[in-house]
């Protein structure tokens, strides 16, 4: 297996992009990444996306995007793993390059969620869960996270306000990220006063749905001299899975998909949780951040909130989280999120983050993209490459 690096990144701002369609968002991000890498063409393109069929009446995204990106004849295919689609698309590109099958692979992940009413998007997003046994009971995706949060509070004796630490931090960082959806701070007070969406989950626990596209160019580490962009080594990009339905898990509060993915990633990268300089967790909901920190080995079961307070999750904390705003502050263009996380980790490792949110000399950056309520999890570990 060859070692793999990323030599180009691109992203659109995360917004309600009324004026742009799916293909233009994807093409903008992909061509920006190609410009950053200094490449004219690619051996292949993997497209991360969840809901183009349901919300834009468009499948067959691979060939569509390849065509409009000016890559006539190049292989392109869509990868879908619900909210984990972006991370899954990175995984596919890493496999193609590591195996030697391809040398230069573009990953572009795109989502357009704001075309329809909230209820229609809610129904579309719920297809990430078990259609016959969760969604058909009227359970929404927010509802699944509410079930987890309620049980977590019950088992470990937390109050609702104890979760404020994650969204408050995400918003504080998003203020400085020009690509982020939200540019306002929140505090514990605004968090506690926020309106419930599915009790106990309130508006400020939930990441906003949004439109956006992000892209990276994946190449062999041995070839990085051939490219223009500052190379970042992708030491690990590993997948773990679990049951689709929450009710089929013995202990829903322990994300086995996360544990499986992260254990492989630590092993392959040769690092431990203590080595991680920043963690782009999948903070789609406050409870998800807590459960991810625990199953990723940063905190014991039930200790994530106390860990966050004690260790500090801000830019100068012991474990900076959501450094560019995370899903909560940057926004959650569902199938694109996993690639935004990787783009942001690379921005940090390159030292190119806006100064108030630049982590001082980061060594290892970890990203974790979670599909559904944890049925597909992709954890990546990245580090600087001495060119």
């Amino acid at each position, binding site marked *: 297996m060859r070692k793999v690096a990323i030599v180009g990144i691109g992203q659109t701002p995360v917004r309600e992009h009324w004026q742009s369609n799916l293909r233009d968002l994807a093409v903008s991000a992909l061509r920006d990444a190609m410009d950053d890498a200094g490449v004219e063409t690619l051996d292949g393109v993997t497209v991360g996306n969840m809901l183009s069929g349901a919300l834009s009446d468009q499948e067959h995204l691979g060939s569509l995007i390849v065509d409009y990106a000016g890559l006539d004849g190049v292989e392109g295919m869509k990868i879908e793993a619900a909210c984990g689609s972006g991370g899954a698309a990175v995984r596919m590109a890493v496999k193609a390059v590591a195996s030697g099958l391809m040398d230069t692979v573009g990953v572009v992940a795109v989502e357009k969620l704001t075309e329809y009413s909230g209820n*229609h998007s809610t129904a579309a997003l719920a297809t990430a869960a078990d259609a016959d046994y969760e969604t058909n009971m*009227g359970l929404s995706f927010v509802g699944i996270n*509410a079930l987890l949060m309620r*049980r977590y509070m019950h088992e470990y004796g937390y109050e609702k306000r104890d979760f404020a630490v994650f969204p408050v931090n995400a918003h504080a960082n998003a203020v400085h990220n020009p690509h982020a959806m939200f540019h306002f701070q929140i505090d514990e007070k605004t968090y506690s006063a926020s309106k419930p969406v599915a009790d106990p*989950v309130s508006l400020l626990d939930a990441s906003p749905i949004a439109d956006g596209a992000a892209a990276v160019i994946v190449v062999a580490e041995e070839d990085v001299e051939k490219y223009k962009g500052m190379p970042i080594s992708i030491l690990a990009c590993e997948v773990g899975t679990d049951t689709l339905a929450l009710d089929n898990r013995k202990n829903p509060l322990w994300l086995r998909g996360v544990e499986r993915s992260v254990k492989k990633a630590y092993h392959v990268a040769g690092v431990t949780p203590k080595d991680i300089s920043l963690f782009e967790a999948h903070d789609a909901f406050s409870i998800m951040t807590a459960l991810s920190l625990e199953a990723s080995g940063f905190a014991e079961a039930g200790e994530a909130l106390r860990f966050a307070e004690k260790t500090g999750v801000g830019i100068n904390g012991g474990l900076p989280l959501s450094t560019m705003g995370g899903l909560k502050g940057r926004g959650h263009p569902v199938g694109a999120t996993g690639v935004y996380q990787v783009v942001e980790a690379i921005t940090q490792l390159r030292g190119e983050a806006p100064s108030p949110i630049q982590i001082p000399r980061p060594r290892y950056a970890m990203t974790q993209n979670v599909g559904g309520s944890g049925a597909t999890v992709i954890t990546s570990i990245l580090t600087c490459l001495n060119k």
Partner: protein
Amino acid sequence: MDIPRYWRLKDQRYKLQGTRCNDCGHLSFPPRLVCPECKSRNYSDYRFKGRGTLYSYTIIYQAPDRFDDQAPYLVGLIDLEEGVRVTAQLTDMTLDEASIGMPLEMVIRQICEDGARGPVLYGFKFRPPFTGQRDSA
């Protein structure tokens, strides 16, 4: 939900029918062709009694399209006596009456109407056991 799909699910939705592994005895709901414990493909139908306790619950304010006219409504995870957990709406109770660990029993109720001309879909929900009087008082 289209009619054939609804028809296929009738044993699950009306009778809470899952599977029992003939080799290791593991119970599954929904039914599974492969036992998640011992990987055997040798199974029998198994009907759950429909009694259990509440593992967790929530109230849905923003519902998926088809459930929009019912919102807000309660959804819970229910631990059945047989050791299997299921997802269902909670009925005949309010948010204030819900508490983790409370006993529940299955009832068949209308789940949703599938559009103006579509079928009315029925299935299981869970409610506090009917004893003639509320024991919570």
